[in-house]
């Protein structure tokens, strides 16, 4: 009977071998799938065992984790409430993370490979060292002003956005989307409360959860004339080249006549390019665009960053919050030929042209920074829990060079003229040279126009210190002037803030 006994022993070995192989399959090969499965409730409990790192700006903590008595050991709180909601996002228990909370989750939660030192130390000491701290480029002063001025805008507008950045680096100084929301209820450990808060925000027709500064695309109106002017300067025009204007102009293939915002604007037959920009002459730019051609205009817009659909804002070199692509849209007939009416309207930022506030700020920043467009970013530094280990410091990076420094200098003079003599006077800051461009965009047949302003400020030495874009949706008459005023306030605060050089 010994031979079969030995074989039975072998069979048991095989059975246990199968168990062992299967456990390897589950605990090694499939482990990550199961560990991060949606059905796995232990994920969040474990995540909340370690204190999540802070998100800070200018020495102020904007997102902190506080100890609790519950099963989830830390509660994420946002001391600044709605002010920074879109700049940092939020970290709910069951819903999806957003913004910096999502993009920098690995560092904040302490699960990043780079934090291996902390984790190894934890193994020895038995502590749970907190996650790393993420420091933002946001200037507290600029953000305060942007948030308050937008909230208390004199047009009583409820939707809009403001974004400011340093033209020399791309560091974002302020980022506000209106209406904003209080992220604290969303992070509640009471899932009913969190879900109720989320549903309420989700159902709000004004879309408070939407980050308009990066995600809203609207017709840019006359701010787009800077792109058209850049194309003109590169195609033989100068500031003083006279271009056809007039009180009204109807594109060759019928369509609606294009008029100016007021009868006082460029009624003469010809104006200089400089004046066309300063006064925001629609008839002049409509004819200029048709003369330049759709391809030239589209190409210039693309060189400024239009059509880019993979830009994100967060840490340089890493994925951050996605930025919606700005578009020039179709300027063609059904048969593929260029439609002059569409081209003319597109040249003044109407028709199917769409732009994000960030794109507007990037155009102004490019002009201010000698034609070099820096990649925008929000994360300036990542510090370990001990606040001394530095895991990351932003190294600014050029995104593209849309125009030469000569063209940029010409555009700068034109935009300065807008603030000095033209439609953007509200943006002036004493002691600084401010340039900009207003925009009033038709939003629809029965709704008020959107008000835009893009601009920049140079210090006494001519160094660009801030570029900004303010959007007031459906603001109606005077919307762009109010946007210019708010933009000036934001840039002044950004200049005054300690971080600015």
């Amino acid at each position, binding site marked *: 009977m010994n031979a079969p006994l030995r074989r039975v022993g072998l069979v048991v070995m095989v059975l246990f071998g199968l168990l062992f192989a299967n456990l390897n399959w589950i605990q090694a090969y499939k482990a990550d799938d199961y*560990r991060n499965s949606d059905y796995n409730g232990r994920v969040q409990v474990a995540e909340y065992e370690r204190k999540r790192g802070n998100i800070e700006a200018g020495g102020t903590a904007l997102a902190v984790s506080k100890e609790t008595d519950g099963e989830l050991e830390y509660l994420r709180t946002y001391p600044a409430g709605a002010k920074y909601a879109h700049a940092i996002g939020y970290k709910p228990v069951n819903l999806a993370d957003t913004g910096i909370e999502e993009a920098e989750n690995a560092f904040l939660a302490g699960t990043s490979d780079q934090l291996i030192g902390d984790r190894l130390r934890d193994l020895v000491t038995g502590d749970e060292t907190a996650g790393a701290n993420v420091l933002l480029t946001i200037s507290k002063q600029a953000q305060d002003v942007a948030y308050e001025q937008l909230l208390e805008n004199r047009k009583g507008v409820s939707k809009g956005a403001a974004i400011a950045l340093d033209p020399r680096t791309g560091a974002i100084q302020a980022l506000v989307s209106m209406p904003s929301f209080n992220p604290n209820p969303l992070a509640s450990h009471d899932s009913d409360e969190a879900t109720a808060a989320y549903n309420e925000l989700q159902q709000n027709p004004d879309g408070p959860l939407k980050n308009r500064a990066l995600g809203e695309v609207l017709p840019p109106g006359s701010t787009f004339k800077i792109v058209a002017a850049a194309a003109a300067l590169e195609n033989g025009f100068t500031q003083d080249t006279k271009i056809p204007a007039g009180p009204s102009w109807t594109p060759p293939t019928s369509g609606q006549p294009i008029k100016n915002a007021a009868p006082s604007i460029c009624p003469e037959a010809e104006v200089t390019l400089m004046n066309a920009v300063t006064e925001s002459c629609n008839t002049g730019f409509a004819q200029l665009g048709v003369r330049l051609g759709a391809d030239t205009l589209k190409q210039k817009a693309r060189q400024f960053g239009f059509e880019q659909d993979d830009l994100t804002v967060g840490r340089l070199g890493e994925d951050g919050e996605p930025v919606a692509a700005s578009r020039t849209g179709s300027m063609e007939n059904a048969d593929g030929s260029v439609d002059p009416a569409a081209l003319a309207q597109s040249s003044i930022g109407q028709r199917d042209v769409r732009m994000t506030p960030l794109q507007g700020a990037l155009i102004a920043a490019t002009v201010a920074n000698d034609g070099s467009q820096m990649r925008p970013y929000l994360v300036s530094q990542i510090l370990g829990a001990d606040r001394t280990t530095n895991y990351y410091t932003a190294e600014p990076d050029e995104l593209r060079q849309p125009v030469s420094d000569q063209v940029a200098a010409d555009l700068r003079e034109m935009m300065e003229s807008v603030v000095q003599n033209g439609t953007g006077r509200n943006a002036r800051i004493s002691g600084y040279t401010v340039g900009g461009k207003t925009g009033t965009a038709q939003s629809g047949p029965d709704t008020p126009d959107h008000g835009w302003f893009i601009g920049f400020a140079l210090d006494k030495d001519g160094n660009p210190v801030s570029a900004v874009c303010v959007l007031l949706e459906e603001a109606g008459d005077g919307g762009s002037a109010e946007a210019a005023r708010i933009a000036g306030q934001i840039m002044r605060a950004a200049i005054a803030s300690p971080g600015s050089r």
Partner: protein
Amino acid sequence: MTAAATSTSPPTSTGGQSGVRLARSRRNAELSLLLLAMVLVAAYGAMVEASVLDTVTPSFWVPAAALSAVFLGLHVAIRFLAPFADPALLPAVALLNGLGVGFLHRLDLARATPAERAELATFAGTGGRQLAWTLISVALAAGLLAVVRDHRSISRYAYTLGLAGIVLVMIPAVLPPSISEINGAKLWIRVGGLSIQPGEFAKLALLAFFAYYLVRKREVLSLASRRFLGVDLPRGRDLGPVVVVWLISLLVLVFEKDLGTSLLYFGMFVATLYIATERVSWLLIGLVLFFGGAYLAYVLGDLIGGPFANFYLRANIWLDPFADPYNDGYQLVQGLLALGSGGMFGAGPGAGQPLKLPEVQNDFIFAGLGEEIGLFGLSALLVVYLLIVERGLRAALAVHDSFGKLLAGGLAFTLGLQVFVIVGGISGLIPLTGQTTPFLSAGGSSLMANWLLIAILLRISDAARRPVTGGGPPSTRPTGGPPEQLHGAPTEVIRP
């Protein structure tokens, strides 16, 4: 443990199997291994406290010490009652039993509020109850060693045990579900707050009967045969008992709604049949019958439902546990998630979240442990189980009488098969069934029955390793002896 296993082989290499064996009881090896196991159990308890309570209480060693006292008692009993028993069995089982108590205590800690935790006494909660059951079970095992001084005497009660086994198997099947059903499987007798799993004891009784019956019938079963396709097939009339057991196991499958138990009984029988007859054909016939029957039950469950519906459902859960992760597949899904969350190294003792697992103190204890001790820890546990099984088989190889060979081989294989059925079930290798995890799961029936199984293996290994010098059996040998045909000289069949 592995080192111990090798060191227990015959110490003199020149002697070999037939040579003069050095008479060494190796009881001191058993003692030191046992103490090592208890140190591991104490260390586990300390790690759990460090993780759950953030501090190691001054009394962390108390459960381990209580267990040590119990096992040392058995160790002393073995010194007197079975001095030549296999020295690896007790420490290996004690380690599993101790870790089981430790994990159940860890569950109590997790269930308690922070205020209650500090006052959780050693004998409170499921961990404490398991500790008490361990004491009773080990006492019973010692009692069995004391009463049964020669394993061959068991064969005298073979028919009684066989009948008792069938009755024990059938009781839950005929009882109303309100008394016998837990989680869809009718395996229990629940009286008051106590639930007994008669099947755990039936296993032992039936095996004793099989061993006796097959030793008597083995010549007929192994010799009279026809060759077909290169396989020796038994005569039709000899198939009778196999068919009967097959029917019983299918009845269990259908009426107790439990594939695991059914597979266990059938596998147990086929294995002993194969060991007795050395005919591969029995294995093939058994496998074909079992899988054919299971497939038939699956098809019938799909077509007509009724008593087969439960098996059909379980098989479908096994095929795709994530199809209905919150209802039908909930248990298996949570088991897989716990194992996966543990990964290779585990969260660490006390650092997982075993309460997310349904039935974590019973069926899913292996998954709960797996979350905390990881693939490496579970592999170590599997090795300890394998060690117990292989030591049991070694006792079967070395013992001289056929009844002892069959009984030890059958018991060892059954233990291994049970581990395979439950661990395979919770890890999705085979359909999930309601088996206990030997020595780990909470519950008196399982613990008692498995300790009795170990007592029998200890008894047989003692007989196997006892030096034959002096000509006669020890003086403690009972008079009156078992039936004649069982203890003539070695009955091993010599095959060319």
